[in-house]
């Protein structure tokens, strides 16, 4: 009889202490770092040395730290942008496209209007235009989702490629600088975001956004609507919420912030526009968003962590000639481990021997 009892059974777990939850998450993170070590070993590098190089090249010197912050700003910004969408269970993976369109709109003013107005006004108009275009790019799939339930995951994704195609065309055509160069000219100094403490002032902007998003999601009517809709569309309707409106509005807010990030990257970092302006941020930010469980403050930490990883990886490429894409692998592994560990928070396993003991007692 006993050997026919199932070996392991599952049961939902009632509640777990906060400390225990964080311990499990920490363990998952440690496991991910360990797996990373194995990958280094397979790639033929000394794992300790590899991690050491990564940390040294990212946090070891001032320029490295600046680069880390520069990398973290867009990750954090887009992570924040995605948070309300994910809370609503709306899978906006169109961050790339929304960033790109935002950057494009900002670039238009930077390239063609810089001599017609003062710098402050120009930067403001660029920001507004970027947000408008980012929002527009998010608006299109959202409307179809809200009206007909069109799959937003794939639609937002297709919008990425379309946005990138448009900028590629501008780059090689109408906005091209030197004919044949396939490059858009650099912005005028008036159209470049000023630096504060060595990094473009976008970092202040995203920190403000952290506060904004925290308040927006937790204390406003909009935030409440989003949370209810994410749990149950029926309940949202029952409570008298306009489901379509909330869906579209939230997606547009998300797109607007992505657009703003595109503006920061184009104006603050690249000082020009090219098709790859988003550079995968829209995808990596999904990780930021999910790992921080949609908590804006946690996103600061996670985006810095991932920025260290990516800066460290480019350091690795120079120092140990290991391809920088290792950072994507490790990012992926961390995310996969964190996803897996939630299971141990929500479920418990019941092993067979307990059962046998119970039977004897009975």
């Amino acid at each position: 009889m006993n050997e026919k009892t199932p070996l392991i059974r599952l049961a939902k777990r009632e509640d777990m202490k906060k400390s225990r939850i964080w311990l499990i998450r920490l363990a998952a993170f440690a496991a991910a770092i360990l797996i990373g070590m194995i990958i280094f070993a397979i790639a033929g590098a000394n794992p300790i040395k590899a991690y050491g190089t990564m940390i040294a090249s990212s946090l070891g010197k001032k320029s490295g730290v600046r680069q880390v912050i520069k990398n973290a700003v867009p990750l954090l910004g887009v992570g924040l942008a995605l948070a309300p969408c994910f809370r609503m269970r709306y899978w906006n993976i169109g961050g790339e496209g929304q960033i790109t369109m935002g950057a494009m709109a900002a670039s238009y003013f930077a390239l063609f209007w810089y001599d017609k107005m003062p710098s402050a006004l120009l930067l403001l108009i660029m920001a507004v235009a970027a947000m408008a275009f980012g929002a527009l790019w998010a608006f299109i799939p959202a409307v179809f989702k809200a009206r007909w339930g069109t799959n937003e995951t794939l639609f937002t994704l297709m919008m990425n490629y379309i946005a990138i195609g448009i900028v590629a065309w501008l780059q090689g055509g109408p906005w091209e600088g030197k004919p044949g160069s396939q490059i858009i000219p650099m912005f005028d100094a008036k159209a470049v975001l000023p630096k504060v403490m060595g990094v473009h002032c976008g970092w202040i902007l995203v920190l403000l956004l952290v506060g904004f998003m925290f308040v927006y999601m937790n204390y406003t009517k909009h935030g409440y609507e989003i949370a209810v809709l994410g749990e149950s569309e029926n309940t949202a309707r029952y409570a008298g919420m306009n489901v379509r409106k909330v869906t579209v509005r939230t997606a547009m807010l998300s797109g607007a912030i992505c657009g703003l990030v595109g503006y920061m990257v184009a104006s603050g970092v690249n000082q020009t526009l090219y098709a790859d302006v988003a550079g995968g941020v829209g995808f990596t930010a999904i990780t930021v968003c999910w790992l921080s469980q949609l908590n804006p403050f946690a996103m600061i930490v996670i985006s810095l962590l991932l920025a260290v990883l990516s800066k460290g990886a480019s350091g690795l490429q120079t120092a140990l000639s290991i391809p920088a894409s290792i950072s994507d692998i490790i990012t992926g592994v961390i995310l996969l481990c964190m996803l897996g560990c939630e299971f141990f928070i929500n479920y418990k396993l019941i092993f067979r021997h307990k059962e046998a003991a119970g039977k004897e007692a009975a």
Partner: protein
Amino acid sequence: MNFNLAGLIKAAVLNGTPLLFGTSGEILTQKSGNMNLGVEGLMFMGGAFGLAGAFWYDQMAGASASGFLAVVIALLCSFLAGVFGALIFSFLTISLRANQNVTGLALTIFGTGLGQFVGEQLRLKVGGNISISNALKGSFANPILPQSLQDIPFLGQVLFSYNGFVYLGILMAIVMSLFLNRTRKGLYLKAVGESPSTADAAGINVTKYKYIATCLGGGISAIGGMVYTMTIAGTVWNHTALSGEGWVAVALVIFCLWKPLNAIWGSILFGGLMIMYLRVPVSFIPSQIYKVLPYIVTAIVLIIVSLRQKREDQPPASLGLPYFREER
């Protein structure tokens, strides 16, 4: 109209074949109720590992390398890479009940990273773009049917002038269709995707079916990445060219209404859209805009599919949902 229709069709078929593998694999996966958004990652892994396998064999065997063996090794490497990726996905979503959307995206990040890493590593090793010997290249890309068949005017080019992967892909789609519609296991698999609790109540091992379908599906999708790298990309690692294939493949699953036979013509259609800008240039449309045509069409297809609500054309009813028997 004075353009080469046969040439266009041929190019469409060749460019559609990676999609055919990618889409068919994902159809199998989705039939089990698993929505694996990691196809992009799987195809990257398949492409890189397939190339690495062929490259490694080329290096080992040198001049005596057999073309057939190289193809088999590439197939196997890419397939196994895909199975590995899909196994991660399966473990997380089936056993650990993680969110399928996020897990799929994580797999994409991981897979594209890993594929890119392997591709780059190979490049660094050789010190330049890696490539395999011309003789082996041919065994991947050259037509496999007798010249006499290919010489038939028009039809020869349209039907008989392809490399082995094209026929393999079509055969695979047909077999998959037969499997789904004519076999007991196929019926069970569909039941699992429609309603796991019903399948479970009927004594079908839901977990087993989900695992096997998802892993096999992942392997098949990954072969698509290899086919792209070894035929269209000319055995050179080119991640920018490969990027996007996996996502179009996922969208095609919806377009094909979860039917492998539809995937055959669907992939050819999209293969055609992808190379239209080269084959049928339109003077007033810039090529960069023309290139995004498949994505625009995909978006339109998504809209049309969502507008049409026929009962038989719906996705598997439990697609994307985890299953836990003792849920209360």
